[in-house]
C-alpha cells in the first residue's frame, strides 16, 4: 500500500515568509510525528499527534512553528516569519497505534526547506 507522502518535496522561500508543509500518513494510522533533520545530524523531534490532538509539542523550537491535524489524517506544519536557520529537511512519520515501546514509525521522504 501507499506509504507516508509529503509535499512539496522541495521548498525555497525568502526570509520572513510563511510556509506550509503537508504530510499524508499511511491510511488508518492514528499517530503522526514531525521531525526536523539538519545536515549531518539525526532527526530532531518536533511534535506528535494522536488523532486530531497534539499529544506532545515539546519539540517545537518557538512560537513561529505550529502544526495541525484537523481530521486526524493529513497534517500541516506551518512556519511563520521563516529564518535562514529553519533550513532543513522536515520529516513526517506515522504509526498504526499510539506511541509506545512496540510501535514502529514509518517515515515519508521529507520536504527540503531552504530559506534564502
Amino acid at each position, binding site marked *: 500500500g501507499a506509504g507516508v507522502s509529503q509535499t512539496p518535496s522541495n521548498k525555497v522561500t525568502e526570509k520572513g515568509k510563511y510556509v506550509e508543509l503537508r504530510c499524508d500518513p499511511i491510511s488508518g494510522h492514528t499517530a503522526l510525528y514531525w521531525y526536523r533533520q539538519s545536515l549531518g545530524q*539525526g532527526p530532531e523531534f518536533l511534535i506528535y499527534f494522536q488523532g486530531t490532538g497534539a499529544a506532545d509539542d515539546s519539540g517545537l523550537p518557538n512560537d513561529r512553528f505550529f502544526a495541525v491535524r484537523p481530521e486526524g489524517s493529513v497534517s500541516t506544519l506551518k512556519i511563520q516569519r521563516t529564518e535562514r536557520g529553519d533550513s532543513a529537511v522536515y520529516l513526517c512519520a506515522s504509526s498504526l497505534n499510539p506511541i509506545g515501546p512496540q510501535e514502529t514509525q514509518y517515515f515519508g521522504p521529507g520536504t527540503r526547506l531552504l530559506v534564502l
Partner: protein
Amino acid sequence: AQSVTQLDSHVSVSEGTPVLLRCNYSSSYSPSLFWYVQHPNKGLQLLLKYTSAATLVKGINGFEAEFKKSETSFHLTKPSAHMSDAAEYFCVVSDLESNYQLIWGAGTKLIIKP
C-alpha cells in the same frame, strides 16, 4: 537522560567484507532500540528493532544487531557488504523517560568500495 552515541561518523568497507556499525546508548529504563537506514533522497526505513524479546535481532537485507545490556551497546552487523548498502545509518533509542519518543544518534555513513 537518554542518549545515543554512534562511535563512527563514517565507515568504509570493501564489497563482500563484513560490516560493523557501532552504537552505544544510555537509558535508565528498559529501552527499545532501532536501526534505521536512509538512502540518498529517500525516506528513513526501519532495518530492525529490539523491544525486550530476543537479544539478537535479525532485520532486512541481511543485517542483524545484538542488544548487550552489560555493555549498553546495540551494534549493527552484516556478514557481507553489498554496493546497495551504501547509505546513512541511524541508531535510535526510546524508553519510558522519553515518553517513547525516538532519540536519534548522529548517524554513520557507510561507504562501500568496489
